[in-house]
Each structure stands twice: as C-alpha cells, then as structure tokens.
C-alpha cells in the first residue's frame, strides 16, 4: 500500500532520475579531473569512454563464481586506450587504465563507493536532503583469497541505459527489437540490442547466484516450499524461450553473414553471431545452475539437519539480536553491541610489571628503524620568537624599585621614578602593583619566597598621564612561614584572592568604577593585610 502511494507521487520519479544521474557522475568526473594528473598529459584520453569500457569488461567477465581481477581488466583495456593515443608509451596506457579502474572503485575512501546528496519531499510534505550511496565496481574475495571485481546493478543499469526497468520484460523487449532490426537489415543496432540482451542475462544470473548462496549458508533463509521452486520454474521457462529465440536469431544471422555482399555488413554480422553465441553459452550455464539448484537444496538440508524442540529456553541470536540491531539507527545500536561485546569477549588478564623483566626489556637493543620505515627525516627547527614583553633588565629595575621593606610608597611616586629611566618599566610597575592588590600569600609561602609585595587602596586617586585608577600604597612584607598559622593564612588568602581577582579587572580597565566597592572592602582588606603582616612577624 505504501509502494502504491509513492509510485503515484511524481517526486518518486524525480528521485529515481536524480539517482540515475548520480550514477553517471563518476564518469564525468574522470574527464573533469584528467587535466590535473601530474604524471602525464592525459587530456588526449577520453576517460568516460575508458570508464564505460572498463565496466563492460568487468561485466563480461562476471559469471557464477568469480569476476575478473585487476590485472585482467587492465590488460583488456590496453588496446582500447592505445587506440586513443597510439604515440604514447605502453607504461602510460597501463597507468591510465589503473587510474580509471581505481577511480571507478573509488580507492582511497573507506567505503570505496560514491555518495550523492539529493533532495526529496517526504510524505508529510517537508523537503529533506538524503544521501544516495552507490558503487560501480566492487571488490570481492574469491574462495582462494584473491580479490576480484564485479560490476554492481547500478553500473549495469548505467551501462545499458535501461534504468529502473524489470529484468525479464526488458529482456523480451530487447529480443523482439533484435529480430525486427535483423529483418530490416540494420545490423549495427542489432549488435547493440544483442549486447544488451547479454548484460540482462548476466544480471539475471546474479539474482540466482545470490539466492543459491543464501541457501548454502542457511536453508531456512530462502523459502524452498513455494517461492524458489516458482522462481526456478519461471527461470527455466524463460531460458527455454530465450534459447529458442536466440537459436533462431543465430540461424538467421549466420545465413545473413554468409549471404551478405558488403564486407562491412559481413563483419558486423559475424560479430553478432559471436555475441549471440556467447548469449546462448551463458543461458546454458544458467540452466545448468538451475538444474543443480534442487540438489544444492537437498544436500544443504541434509547438512543442516533439523533437530528436536529446544531443551531449554535460549535466545535466538540471529532473529532476536542481530536483525533488530541491524535495523537500529547507528546511535541506538551502540548500546546493545557494546553490552554484547563486553559480556561476550571474556576476560583479559592485565600484565603486572616485574622489575627483572622490565630491566631486560629496557636493556634490549632497539630494533633498527631503518629497515622498517626508511630514512627518518631530521626536523628543521626554528627558534621560537621572543615573547617576553619586558626585558630582563627592565625586570631587574622594577625589582629594585619595588623592594620596599620599611616604608610603604605610593604608586604615583614609583611610576614617576620608573618613567625617568624607562617608560616600559613604569608599565611593568603598574602591572605588578595591580597584581599585588590581591597577593597570593599562600602561594608565596608554598614557594618559600622571601617577601611578598602588598598593595593597599586607601581611596586616593592616581593622577598619571598614562595610567588611571587608585593610587595604591605598596610595601613588601616578609614572609616567614610558621607551620601552625600557615593553614590560617592560606584560608584568608583564598578569600582575598577571589576579591582581588574581581577588582583587578575593574582597576585595570574601568578606572573609576570600583571606588564605592573598594571603599566598602577597605576595612576587610586592611584587616587581612594586618593579619598577614602579623603572621609574617
């Protein structure tokens, strides 16, 4: 019912055409990118043609068991490529063939496929972007471990240009067309139709192969009671009629070939005879498989014997775990698979280091990397740029000015004195004064510093051309860590530091704002300062 709805929807046709269009994109892409290849001037090659020819070669090599491997396909492509650029070297031809093949597989991406984003209007009327994933050539592993190529349904559809059509009816249509063409003597078209018929046959064989494979894995995954016998029946009937039709065509064209006067006609008819002969051979192969299918089923049924009812309740791993999990969105599927993995993989025994084995491990000579990774390049290092805002000399001068063990001094006086030697030192003094407004006595204590600089705001405004804010009173206090009181000092410092941090920002930028709050805080600050000084004494 859902299918009916969607076929009635014109957007479905649009999406189908967009997908069909997407399948051709990799071929166009080949021609678009050929000029950027750095190993050859590849503009003389018609890459899309080579791409189509590659898919042809792979499709023709497909039969029930394996397809062509990379080398075979490359080798078969060479004459075609050489015809396009006869003056280039054979090496370059091989390289072009490999490049096209790799690009049709899309080597280099994890999924080895293509993705096209297209838009479609949902059942509820909203426009959604969806991703269409497709592949043209896929690599599969043969039983002997070799990797070989197969063309996907998408590729076969692109190739024969019959998008989204029913295999069987298209097959019949192609045959009828062929007969018509022959009676009218149009052999070139006839050849095309015969080739199409052959691709159809290959595609038909693919469907049957998948069913038989599924049977071999598990008899019960395929319905052998009704559906597969029906499929086999219809396939056999189908082959019978094709066989008859193609034998008739073969007879006709063989006669046409022998009778034809025109050498071009004669040659094309001969080609057609060859193609139809190949079709018949493929039909025969398919028929053999179909006849053996029953035996496969019986053998597999014997092998996968049925047994009695369950002795105790257990979970059906395939039906209750695997299939539901596969159907979940990736984000939801993570929880069940992680739960399974954690519980289903047993235990790992952690290794406990022991000194004797550690020593011998460390003393073992390092493996020579040269044999493994080749030469290790020496990195060229550039010294980092000097990022200090103030020089050591400026720091030293500031240190000298801020050494105030006896009497507190006003910031304004210090700035004036500093500016006399170096304006930068004045800025450094101002920054250090602000920093000292909330001194970290605890930190100084921990780092065993001799003294800490204290800044106190008594409400006087700073009158300075460059810097604004409060004219702080500065003094260095000696730090004398007494363990008992250390904790107390730490605690006080915590509060102090917080308050200082808040005021720091205000004192820096907005010069006049914190006056009120600073005034309120004053007693507290002085108390703290005295407490610290007391502690220091």
């Amino acid at each position, binding site marked *: 019912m859902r299918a009916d709805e969607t076929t009635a929807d014109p957007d479905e046709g649009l*999406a189908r055409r967009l997908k069909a269009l997407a399948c051709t994109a990799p071929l166009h892409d080949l021609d678009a990118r050929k000029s950027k290849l750095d190993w050859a001037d590849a503009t003389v090659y018609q890459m899309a043609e080579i791409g189509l020819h590659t898919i042809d070669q792979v499709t023709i090599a497909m039969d029930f068991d394996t397809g062509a491997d990379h080398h075979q396909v490359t080798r078969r492509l060479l004459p075609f490529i050489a015809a396009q650029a006869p003056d280039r070297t054979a090496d370059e031809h091989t390289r072009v063939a490999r490049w096209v093949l790799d690009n049709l597989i899309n080597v280099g991406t994890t999924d080895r496929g293509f993705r096209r984003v297209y838009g479609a209007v949902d059942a509820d009327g909203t426009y959604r972007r969806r991703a269409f994933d497709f592949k043209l050539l896929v690599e599969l592993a043969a039983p002997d471990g070799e990797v070989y190529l197969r063309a996907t349904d998408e590729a076969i559809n692109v190739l024969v240009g019959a998008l989204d059509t029913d295999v069987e009816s298209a097959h019949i249509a192609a045959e009828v067309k062929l007969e018509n063409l022959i009676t009218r003597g149009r052999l070139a078209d006839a050849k095309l139709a015969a080739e199409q018929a052959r691709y159809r046959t290959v595609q038909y064989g693919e469907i049957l192969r998948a069913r038989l494979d599924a049977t071999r894995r598990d008899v019960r995954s395929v319905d052998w009671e009704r559906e597969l016998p029906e499929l086999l029946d219809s396939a056999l009937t189908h082959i019978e009629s094709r066989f008859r039709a193609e034998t008739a065509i073969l007879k006709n064209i063989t006669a046409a070939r022998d009778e034809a006067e025109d050498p071009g006609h004669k040659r094309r008819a001969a080609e057609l005879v060859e193609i139809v002969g190949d079709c018949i051979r493929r039909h025969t192969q398919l028929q053999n498989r179909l006849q053996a299918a029953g035996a496969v089923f019986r053998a597999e049924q014997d092998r996968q014997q049925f047994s009695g009812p369950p002795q105790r309740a257990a979970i059906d791993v*395939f039906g209750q775990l695997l299939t539901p999990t596969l159907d979940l969105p990736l984000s939801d599927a993570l929880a069940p*698979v992680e*739960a399974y993995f954690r519980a289903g993989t047993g235990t790992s025994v952690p290794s406990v280091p022991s000194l004797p084995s550690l020593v011998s491990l460390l003393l073992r000579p390092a493996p020579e990397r040269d044999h493994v990774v080749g030469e290790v390049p020496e990195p060229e290092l550039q010294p980092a740029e000097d990022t200090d805002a103030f020089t050591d000399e400026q720091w030293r001068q500031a240190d000298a000015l801020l050494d105030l063990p006896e009497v507190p001094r006003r910031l304004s006086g210090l700035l004036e004195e500093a500016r006399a030697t170096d304006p930068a030192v004045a800025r450094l003094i101002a920054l250090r004064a602000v920093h000292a407004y909330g001194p970290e006595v605890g930190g100084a204590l921990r780092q065993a510093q001799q003294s800490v600089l204290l800044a106190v705001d008594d409400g006087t405004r700073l009158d300075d051309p460059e810097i604004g804010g409060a004219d702080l009173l500065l003094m260095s206090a000696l730090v004398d860590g007494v363990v008992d009181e250390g904790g107390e000092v730490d605690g006080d410092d915590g509060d102090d530091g917080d308050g200082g941090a808040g005021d720091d920002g205000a004192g820096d930028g907005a010069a006049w704002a914190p006056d009120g709050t600073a005034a309120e805080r004053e007693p507290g600050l002085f108390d703290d300062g005295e407490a610290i000084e007391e502690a220091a004494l």
Partner: protein
Amino acid sequence: MSTGHASADAEAAARLLAFGMRPKLVPGRDVVYADLVRRYGEDSAFKQLTHAVAAGLGLMVLEVNAQAGAVLAATDESIFEIKMDSYARQSKIRERRDTEKVLHGLIHLATAALGYPRPDDLANDTYIGRVSVEQVDGVVREACRILDERAAANTDPLADAPELEQAWRAYARRPAAAATKDGRLAPDTTRGMVTRALRFLAEQGFLVPVSSEQGGTYRTTPRYQVQVRELAADAAFDELLALGVVSVPGEGSTLRASAGDTL
C-alpha cells in the same frame, strides 16, 4: 563461614580461577585442573569460596564444568574487562568512531548467530557450531539485503544526520574486500574486521581454527556457548528490550525469513 577456610582451600579456589584465566586450557588436558573442577562440582563450601574469591577480584563465575573448564566474566569496571574502545581502534580519523564500534559489535553478534543458528543449538551442551570469515560476512550482508528490501520506499539516510542512519546501511556500504598494494586484506573492510574478530575469539579460547578455507574456518568451543548463553545474549537482549525493538519470543526461531523477504 568465610572465616572457617583453611588457607589451602583459598589457594585452591584461586588456582581454579587462574586456570579459568587461561582460556585455551581445558580440564581434559590438566589433571590438577580436572581435580579442581570436580571438587567445585562436589563441594558446595569450595564452590562458595571460589565465588567469593572471584567476586573479590571483580569476576563472575559463569560455569565450571569438565568440558569448558572455569568460564569467567568480568564485572563492571573490573580490571579484567575488555574495553570496546581499545578493541575498535580507529584506522582512519575521519570515520565516525561510533560507526566503527557498531560494525565490530555487529560482527561479534553475527559470529554467535552463525555459531548457534537456532535457540536449540545454544541450549544444547553438545552442539558444536562452525563459522568462517566468508559465512559471517555473508550472514550480515544477507540480513542487510533483506532489511533493504523490507524498507519502505525512500529510506535513504538523511544527509545532515549521519547518526540516524541505520546500522545495516553502514555495514552494506562498507566493502567486503579491497586489494592493497602488498596483497594483504585491508583491515577496514568487513572481511578484514571479521578475520580480526574470529582470531580474537580464538585467542580467547572461544573458537578453534579448523582450516584456512573460506578465509578461515573455526569451530565453537563449549566455553563460547556458555559465555553467549549465560551472559552476552542476555546483556544485549536487555538493551534491545529497553529500546523496545524486540519482544519476548514465541515459538521457533526467526532466522527463516518470512515469505515476502526473500525475493
């Protein structure tokens, strides 16, 4: 009770657990192990002591029998736990990490599904299953194909929400094999991942290699059956129940697809 044990008993219990931590060792090959397994079956005080020692270490004793030996499982946050994060190492940074983890997890599920195709097989202590790299990959791909055919008209994933893509799409899209320059099996293909999973399970004493046919063929061990039946299947099932995607089963298995699914 727990104070009454002699230290010799505690040593024996710990030794039994230590045997259980060597997953390839079976009681049939070691006299001391076999004695301890027998004692566990006959002496209930020793059984409780073993459980107590295991619990202290962060282990659960799933079963102790003559075929499987002592089958242990790690409890949550135990040092013996195998983390999925460390198993599913990332091969390519740009791939989503969750996707890799889900794919690895699905392969482990499929291995169990193929090793024990029916509930009977999981319940029957004498059943020995066979799995191979080719079959495991095939089972998942076949399930993906059926789900694809079952899917409604247009369920192509949304381009802007990759995490909502169904797991079977991610699996089906991943190539089965890929040729590498040096002729090895590429590790981020599904067959590469299956090969790794089966080797890993063989090292954990859950599978035994039989031949190199079909990319590597293995048979299951009683230990694997216990692990899947007693713990892992339930753990995953609970998660799925919580998500509301499965219901408590009726009769028979569901591996046989319904009539409409196969064509």
